[in-house]
Structures are given as structure tokens and as C-alpha cells.
């Protein structure tokens, strides 16, 4: 009898260990998934031409804190591109403009979307390599 008991006890150890490992694996997978869901980035426009006033908007997400635009003046002139963040409510952040071909906007918003735009005053189209937003 005691032999049976001790046998049960002996087999209970590995069973608990297996359950613990399984739980740990589930927790790890859940943790990784949660991290993946939190860290987000999106190319919301790529390799296209913007005429004056053209605007693109990224998907909405939480904690957006990077909005980057790369562009070039292959059609002539010194056209200006801009970036900003918008939220569901309240006034949007003001535009950041440049004609250098690169804007890296590091403002952040608790929940919102990123935008890129060709200034309505541009006399030339502008080639946009990408508009990209992220929250990490």
C-alpha cells in the first residue's frame, strides 16, 4: 500500500512539473502576443506621387510616437511635405513641414493616427518614398 502511495507521489512530481511548464509556455505565448499587439508600425503610403494638397492617414493606434516621411523633388522645384498626428477628438497637432526630403516627427499621442501631406502651396508634384508611423 505504502509502495502504491509512494509510487503515486513519485508520479505526481513530474505531472505538476509538466503542468507548470505548460502554464509557463501559455504565459510566454500570451506575453509575446501582447507585446506584438502593443508594438505597431505601418507604411501608410509608399512609392507614389503627391500633388499639392494630397493627404494620407495611417490606421489609428495607441501611443503613436513616430511619424516619418521620405520624399524627393524629382519633378522639380522644392516641394514641401508635412507630418502630424490626429486624435479622435480635440484639435490635431500642427503640421511639421520641410523641403529637404526627410521629416522625422517624434511627437506622441495617447491614441490617434499619423498623417502625411503635400503642401497645398506646392508648384510641383512630389515623389513620396514612404510615410511610416509606429508606436515603439
Amino acid at each position, binding site marked *: 500500500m505504502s509502495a502504491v502511495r509512494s509510487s503515486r507521489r513519485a508520479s505526481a512530481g513530474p505531472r505538476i512539473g509538466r503542468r507548470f511548464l505548460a502554464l509557463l509556455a501559455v504565459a510566454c505565448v500570451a506575453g509575446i502576443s501582447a507585446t506584438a499587439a502593443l508594438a505597431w508600425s505601418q507604411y501608410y503610403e509608399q512609392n507614389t506621387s503627391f500633388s499639392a*494638397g494630397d*493627404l494620407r492617414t495611417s490606421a489609428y493606434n495607441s501611443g503613436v510616437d513616430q511619424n516619418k516621411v*521620405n520624399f*524627393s523633388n524629382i519633378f522639380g522645384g*522644392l516641394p*514641401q511635405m*508635412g507630418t502630424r*498626428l490626429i486624435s479622435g477628438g*480635440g*484639435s490635431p*497637432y*500642427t*503640421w*511639421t*513641414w*520641410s*523641403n*529637404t*526630403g*526627410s*521629416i*522625422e*516627427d*517624434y*511627437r506622441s499621442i495617447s491614441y490617434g493616427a499619423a498623417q502625411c*501631406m503635400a*503642401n*497645398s*502651396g506646392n508648384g510641383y508634384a512630389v515623389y513620396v518614398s514612404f510615410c511610416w508611423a509606429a508606436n515603439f
Partner: protein
Amino acid sequence: MQLLKSKWIVLIGSLLVAITAGTTVVIAVGNAGSEPPSGVSTGVSSLDRLPAVSNLPPKVQAWLTYDSTLSGTDPTQARASVRRLRSTLGTTQSDVYAFRSRSGATCYLITGRTGSCPQDASRGTPGFQWTIGGGYPGVPSALAGVVADDVSAIELTVDGKDVPVSIENNFAFAEFPTTAQRADVSVRHVSGAVSSFNVNLQG
């Protein structure tokens, strides 16, 4: 007959030489009187003059990694060439970090605000690679950017009012209200030339 042919050849040859020489002179005169070279291609000497930065905050390190990759610059070389051009700037008390990319462009970051990493030094307005705007609740908009060695002053007028622009270590900075509609900027070069542009701030 042969002599006549030779004279014609000499005459046409002389004419071609004269036309070529004339065109060259016209081009040279045209360049001498035109705008200074675009971007900051005349030099950004602060990147050579200022001391290296020993410690970089994590977000500055992340910016450096991104921009060195984007510009095809060796990360080790980029890290070694980082300089702090300005400190505690404006309402956000931002620092300005910059490095020279493989192509010779100046990539910069104004901490917590904005940055730029042009493809090369010749992009944009002669003498000034700028960003403008970028205000948000509690923080005014700003004109900021890398100034070439051949620039003596930058003048900013926002909605008809003059706004002082400070330039130190090849970096210009000025703040103005987020409600502004229009900015007019003049870049004064040492040569006396002036490069001007305006921006519709509301898009």
C-alpha cells in the same frame, strides 16, 4: 582647290572654338551671379569642431540606429561622429544631436520634437535644411534646422511679425504660436545673396 578646302576647315574649326568659348563664359557669368549652392553643401563645420558625445540617451541611440541604417552609414562611424549642437532649446528644453552620413548629409534630432536625415547635403533651400511647425498642446511651433557655414543670418516673419532666430553651432531655432498661418523665411549668405521661401503652415 585643296588650299581652299583647308581654309574652310580652319574657318569652321575656329568658329566652333569661338562658340564653345563664348558659351563657357556665359555659363560662368551666370553662375557667379546666381543663388548659392542648394542645401548645406558649403559645409557644416561644427560637426568637425565640437567634442564627441560620450553618452547618448536611449531614444537618441534609437534615432542614431534608425538614421544610420536609413542613410547607409556604418553605425560605428555614425556613433563616433555624433555631436550635440544645441542644449535645452525652447519650451521642450530639447537637445540637438547630429551626425554626418555616408553621403555627407547632416542628420539631426531635436529630442522630443523632430528630426531630418536628407539623402545628401545638397537637398533643400540654399544654406538651410529646415523643418517648421510641429507644435502641440502646450508646446509652440518651431523653425529649426542645419545652417551652412556660408550663412550669416536667418530671418523669420510669421503672419507679418518678425520672430528672432538664434543660430549656434550651425543650428537655427525659433519658436512661434501654433495658430500661425504663414511663415516667410530669408536666408542671408555671407556673399550678400539671399535665399527666401514661404510656408503655408496650415497645409
